[in-house]
């Protein structure tokens, strides 16, 4: 079967008609659900029914404003739709009454309004002009929060499956050339040119070839792929189909981490309906091209994000990386040529084929084309999902999109690329976000996780956190990673506990260097990056911990001493009650004292003191 | 073996029948097991669910003693489905019509009834074996230790020839020899009708050759086989026996008959390492040196002649076996003077055409596989690549012969015997670790029978046949069929061969160790 012109325009027509009806749309991505989106949905349905309103209640996925979840969009015919943030079931009655019945938006709870050619409201920022979105582009993410990901009609009505339809009329090499022209590079972290990879697999000799989608997103603080899978599953499928056709594969596997049940559910729904419609399966759209795809759920191992470990895991083995070469392009799944890309990479493909490689390469820098999705978390005002053109500076990202550092504190560092990436300091704020610049600074683009830190963050603690993660997730196969990350972690722990010696820095550097150059896989080779970058940019903090037994950020408990400031303490006794170990004593209305031998440095007393009388140093 | 152990890694299908290689030939078993890891297919035919059966693609759990119906049945299907190798049959064999006629009546339905193997598995096995180009047959004593052992062997050969699975890499008929130097002992003419190299004693030219070489007149009358010797001894015709390194009381069927034979003779010499059950009947015991204390050669199943090297001086006052025999010969007026085993080897090589090109120097590192007729011959890893020994391979029409003794009301259980991994015929009981690991017999019986008998694993039973009665502990397992008991013959405390039947293949004189009728009763612990 094929999607005929008539069918497509019919679907588009219906989609547009629906958009013109009164609508309430709840964001039900994982983040929305976690924030209580389902309860909000129930309340909305109940209220609509109670009031007997002629309103469509629908859901969409995460629009990216995680800081504002649960997010609800309300639209009246002819008017811009308004996106409300922080909606709880308790707000629902009032919001519906005001917006849907009285037709008066609740400006104070509105985040943005989406114009779409309709009449705007006063006092609510248009999406394109809002602080969060003004500098963003919405290329891969544009359906997120805008369409219902569980309805294939929404996808088709918005240009979906045009890419594969076009591709099926093209020469295979022409498709690969188009991808090459676009300059698309792997969005999973490596940044390998996608077109070149496809060419390798296309050229590889094999009776069978596979397409594998890496959806094993495991970096702490990264959820780009989850958002795309939950919000636009068909785009990933379409990208895989185009790749399959281009390289000559007829079977695909999506390896998705089991911790993403909603993504898996939506993917399964998407596959099922696409198969039912003849968009996937045998003789796709009458072209003679066959493609089927299945989902393999991961089982909880970060290292399976490494491509060869992932292949082993699909084959039912321990997720231990293989030696490369041979590369998966030549010997991949079941030793057959395999094209392995991540979710975001595949999701970019349909647009590139539809709009052309030149369209894509018009965005970005010389070597890093297009846009990139980032998850911005940590001590910033706007945590969430954003998509920016390659080449934007970190500064723009922090101070514009992210809304600056929380509580007016000072920016200290950003960890780019998760446990494999590095910490970049203030001096690097004007760095352009692209593969080369980040790499040169000692970090990596990675899959797109950016964790921001403020002045209260101890860089050793951060390095320790990430190293602990990689150490726990090391597969154990090669010596440098298995034994080396353990020793690095132990060394960091010693330093943070105040038992560091000056040689520790040399040892850390030597271990880091050897692991980086000698470990078997990318997980191991990049594991030392957080330590190397913090050593590079924040060496003074290491020295303070080692030489002065001091944690400048006041984080490492063993290096802290809590004291009560005599000039501030009024002797109220609150801290005495707060102290779990009975370390604080003092008469009422007399200055209290902390017994350092009993104090376990848990810090429980600090927030309880209303007079800021407890100091840590 | 027509092919070599190295060739086990080249085949695409093993058909293992009447063989338990992972226990009796562990390194052959290991090669099979590791091939399976790489996707090689496996058919197992065995009354017991042996270890390989669990790894098999097709497991044919036949009734003991029904190998011929099974093999004929497979050939029936292969012929009916036109899966035989017509070219091979035409070019390399004769007698196909006889075979076709013989297997005609072995329809799948009938074979299934006779063997207990489901019909669909017969079809699966026949098709898989016939259609796999590199398919290798392996068998052992499960084929030969029957009164129809020779017929069984012929049937196996029929099957291989019918499908053209001979004379090429990864194919062949590969009987693994039970003992370390069965091949060599046969090659050396320790057979009543053969001089070294299977040169017949009845052949006058051969006789003349050996008379010349040995400088004496030789008999052209074939001698007695072991069973005939024992019978002759009991009958009083045989008066003396010189037994070198064998323990027939423990290892030959119907042990009581053997004991009687030994007691009947005037003089028995036993040359041994240990006080074996047989040695107890000796008049003189001559202590031999073990294989670690002397030089020599063994010839393995794959016809590989390899060095045995002296590592230590003979223990105590022991002597190498060859030296002792030569001493006796000398004292009987026939001097056989050799300074070193190498001299013996050179002499035997000069008289044994297939060994003609083999010298100690040439086998220093890797041995040589005979036939190796000349010093520049590289040895022969695969036999019959161009022709069979007799020229064309002859199909033999074989019909079923039931075992000599089958269970009945009085002796309702079927006894079958064999080896276990941790023991060898002899000597391993004297290895401290091996004996500690497996110190006693653990006869295998089926759970259903165990319930009937009221016994569990570790309990003791009395097993009785028409010929004898032994006590053994049991292990309850579904690896044996119900109605069957399986025992090894390693334990003097449980001399299984007191039970086995005194019946032999008429040609090879191999005893029917694999089938006997017994009665089982629970009894007090050993």
């Amino acid at each position: 079967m094929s999607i005929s012109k008539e069918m497509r325009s019919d679907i588009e027509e219906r989609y547009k008609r629906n958009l013109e009806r009164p609508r309430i749309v709840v964001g039900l991505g994982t983040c929305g659900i976690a924030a209580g989106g389902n309860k909000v949905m129930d309340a909305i349905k109940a209220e609509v029914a109670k009031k007997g309103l002629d309103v469509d209640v629908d859901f969409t996925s995460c629009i990216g404003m995680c800081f504002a979840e649960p997010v609800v969009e309300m639209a009246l015919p002819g008017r811009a739709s308004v996106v409300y943030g922080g909606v709880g079931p308790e707000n629902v009655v009032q919001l519906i009454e005001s917006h849907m019945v009285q037709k008066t938006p609740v400006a104070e709870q509105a985040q943005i309004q989406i114009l779409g050619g309709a009449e705007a409201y006063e006092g609510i920022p248009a999406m394109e002009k809002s602080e969060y979105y003004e500098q963003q582009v919405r290329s891969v993410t544009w359906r997120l929060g805008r369409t219902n990901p569980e309805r294939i009609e929404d996808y088709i009505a918005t240009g979906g499956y045009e890419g594969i339809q076009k591709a099926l009329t093209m020469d295979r090499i022409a498709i690969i050339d188009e991808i090459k022209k676009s300059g698309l590079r792997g969005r999973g972290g490596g940044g390998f040119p996608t077109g070149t990879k496809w060419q390798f697999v296309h050229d590889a000799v094999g009776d069978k070839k596979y397409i594998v989608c890496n959806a094993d997103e495991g970096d702490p603080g990264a959820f780009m792929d989850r958002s795309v899978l939950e919000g636009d599953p068909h785009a990933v499928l379409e990208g895989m189909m185009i790749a399959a056709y281009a390289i000559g594969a007829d079977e695909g596997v999506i390896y998705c981490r089991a911790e993403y049940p909603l993504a898996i559910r939506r993917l399964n729904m998407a596959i099922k309906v696409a198969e039912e419609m003849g968009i996937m399966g045998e003789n796709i759209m009458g072209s003679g091209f066959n493609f089927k795809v299945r989902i393999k759920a991961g089982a909880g191992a970060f290292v399976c994000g490494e491509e060869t470990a992932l292949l082993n895991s699909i084959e039912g083995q321990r997720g231990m990386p293989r030696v490369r070469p041979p590369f998966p392009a030549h010997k991949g799944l079941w030793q057959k040529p395999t094209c392995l890309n991540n979710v975001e990479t595949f999701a970019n493909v349909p647009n590139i084929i539809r709009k052309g490689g030149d369209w894509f390469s018009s965005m970005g820098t010389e070597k890093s084309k297009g846009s990139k999705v980032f998850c911005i978390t940590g001590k910033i005002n706007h945590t969430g999902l954003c998509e920016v053109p390659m080449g934007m500076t970190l500064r723009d990202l922090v101070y514009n999109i992210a809304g600056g550092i929380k509580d007016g504190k000072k920016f200290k560092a950003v960890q780019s690329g998760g446990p494999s990436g590095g910490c970049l300091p203030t001096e690097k704020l004007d760095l352009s976000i692209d593969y080369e610049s980040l790499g040169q600074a000692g970090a990596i683009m990675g899959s797109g996780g950016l964790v921001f830190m403020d002045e209260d963050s101890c860089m050793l603690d951060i390095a320790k956190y990430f190293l602990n993660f990689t150490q726990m997730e090391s597969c154990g196969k090669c010596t440098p990673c298995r034994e080396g990350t353990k020793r690095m972690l132990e060394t960091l722990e010693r330093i943070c506990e105040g038992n560091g010696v000056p040689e520790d820095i040399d040892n850390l550097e030597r271990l880091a260097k050897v692991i980086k150059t000698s470990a078997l896989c990318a997980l191991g080779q990049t594991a030392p990056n957080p330590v190397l970058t913090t050593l590079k940019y924040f060496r003074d903090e290491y020295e303070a911990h080692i030489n002065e037994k001091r944690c400048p950020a006041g984080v490492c408990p063993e290096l802290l001493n809590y004291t009560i400031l005599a000039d501030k303490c009024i002797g109220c006794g609150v801290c005495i009650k707060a102290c779990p170990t009975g370390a604080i004593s003092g008469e009422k209305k007399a200055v209290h004292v902390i017994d350092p031998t009993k104090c376990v440095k848990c810090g429980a007393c600090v927030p309880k003191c209303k007079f800021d009388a407890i100091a840590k140093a | 073996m027509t092919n070599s152990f190295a060739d086990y890694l080249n085949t695409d299908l093993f058909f293992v029948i009447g063989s338990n290689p992972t226990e009796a030939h562990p390194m052959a078993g290991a090669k099979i097991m590791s091939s399976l890891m790489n996707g090689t297919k496996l058919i197992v035919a065995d009354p017991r669910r042996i270890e390989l059966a669990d790894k098999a693609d097709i497991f044919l759990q036949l009734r003991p003693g029904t190998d011929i119906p099974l093999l004929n049945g497979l050939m029936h299907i292969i012929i009916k489905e036109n899966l035989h190798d017509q070219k091979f049959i035409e070019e390399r064999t004769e007698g196909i019509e006889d075979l076709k006629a013989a297997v005609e009546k072995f329809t799948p339905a009938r074979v299934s009834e006779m063997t207990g193997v489901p019909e669909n598995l017969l079809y699966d096995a026949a098709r898989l074996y016939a259609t796999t180009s590199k398919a290798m047959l392996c068998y052992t004593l499960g084929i030969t230790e029957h009164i129809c052992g020779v017929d069984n062997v012929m049937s196996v050969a029929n099957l291989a020839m019918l499908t053209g699975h001979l004379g090429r890499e990864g194919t062949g008929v590969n009987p693994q020899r039970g003992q370390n130097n069965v091949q060599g002992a046969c090659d050396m003419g320790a057979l009543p009708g053969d001089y070294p190299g299977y040169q017949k004693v009845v052949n006058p030219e051969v006789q003349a050759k050996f008379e010349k070489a040995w400088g004496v007149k030789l008999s052209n009358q074939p001698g007695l086989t072991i069973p005939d010797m024992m019978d002759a001894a009991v009958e009083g015709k045989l008066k003396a026996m010189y037994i070198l390194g064998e323990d027939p009381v423990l290892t030959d069927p119907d042990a009581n008959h053997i004991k009687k034979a030994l007691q009947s003779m005037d003089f028995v010499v036993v040359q041994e390492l240990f006080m074996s059950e047989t040695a107890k009947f000796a008049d003189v015991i001559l202590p031999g040196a073990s294989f670690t204390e002397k030089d020599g050669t063994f010839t393995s199943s794959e016809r590989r002649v390899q060095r045995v090297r002296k590592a230590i001086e003979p223990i105590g006052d022991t002597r190498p076996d060859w030296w002792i025999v030569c001493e006796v010969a000398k004292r009987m007026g026939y001097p056989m003077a050799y300074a070193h085993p190498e001299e013996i080897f050179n002499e035997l090589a000069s008289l044994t055409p297939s060994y003609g090109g083999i010298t100690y120097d040439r086998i220093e590192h890797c041995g040589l596989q005979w036939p190796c007729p000349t010093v520049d011959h590289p040895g022969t890893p695969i036999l019959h690549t161009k022709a069979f020994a007799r020229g064309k391979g002859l199909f033999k029409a074989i019909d079923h012969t039931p075992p000599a003794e089958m269970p009945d009301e009085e002796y309702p259980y079927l006894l079958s015997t064999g080896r276990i991994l941790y023991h060898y015929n002899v000597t391993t009981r004297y290895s401290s670790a091996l004996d500690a690991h497996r110190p006693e017999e653990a006869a295998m019986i089926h759970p259903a029978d165990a319930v009937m008998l009221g016994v569990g694993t570790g309990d003791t039973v009395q097993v009785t046949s028409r010929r004898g009665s032994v006590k053994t502990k049991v292990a309850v397992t579904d690896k044996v069929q119900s109605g069957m008991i399986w025992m090894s013959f390693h334990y003097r405390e449980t001399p299984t061969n007191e039970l086995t039947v005194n019946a032999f293949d008429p040609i090879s004189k191999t005893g029917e160790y694999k089938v006997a009728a017994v009665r089982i009763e629970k009894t007090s612990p050993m």
Partner: protein
Amino acid sequence: MAGCACTGEKVDSPQDLQLMDLLGHYRGYDGSLIPVLQGVQEIYGYLPAEVLEKVSQELKIPFSKVFGVVTFYAQFHLKPRGRNIIRVCLGTACHVLGNAKVFDRLKDILGVDNGGTTDDLRFTLESVACIGACGLAPCIMINDDTHGRLTVDGLEDILAQYA
């Protein structure tokens, strides 16, 4: 086929029937071990040793490899897991304030040891390094809820909140 060890075996529990379905569904497929293990864990709530052995036989994958896979992935559990996971904080503050007594009392009430699961699969009891709620010490976490300032006597009331 030789691999069919299920013949003649007594099948009694619905779980065993589900297991047979699962194995039947995946038998013969390459790379089915992990989905099968996920299915087994869904059926039994964990991976019982004897079921793993059966999986090994049915899929013809060496038992050691099955075990290697099971212990590699964090998702798999060789012991039953309860519906509710109790994590007893063993951080310094909690320790000083006697969380050991709380721990002991919980073991008594539930009849399990550290790492154990109640027979009705209601609770799994585990210890955990500091959960960062020292101000609430002594404390435990049940699922995502933190319960602080515990007394030994109040534990039963807290447990009653979890079905």
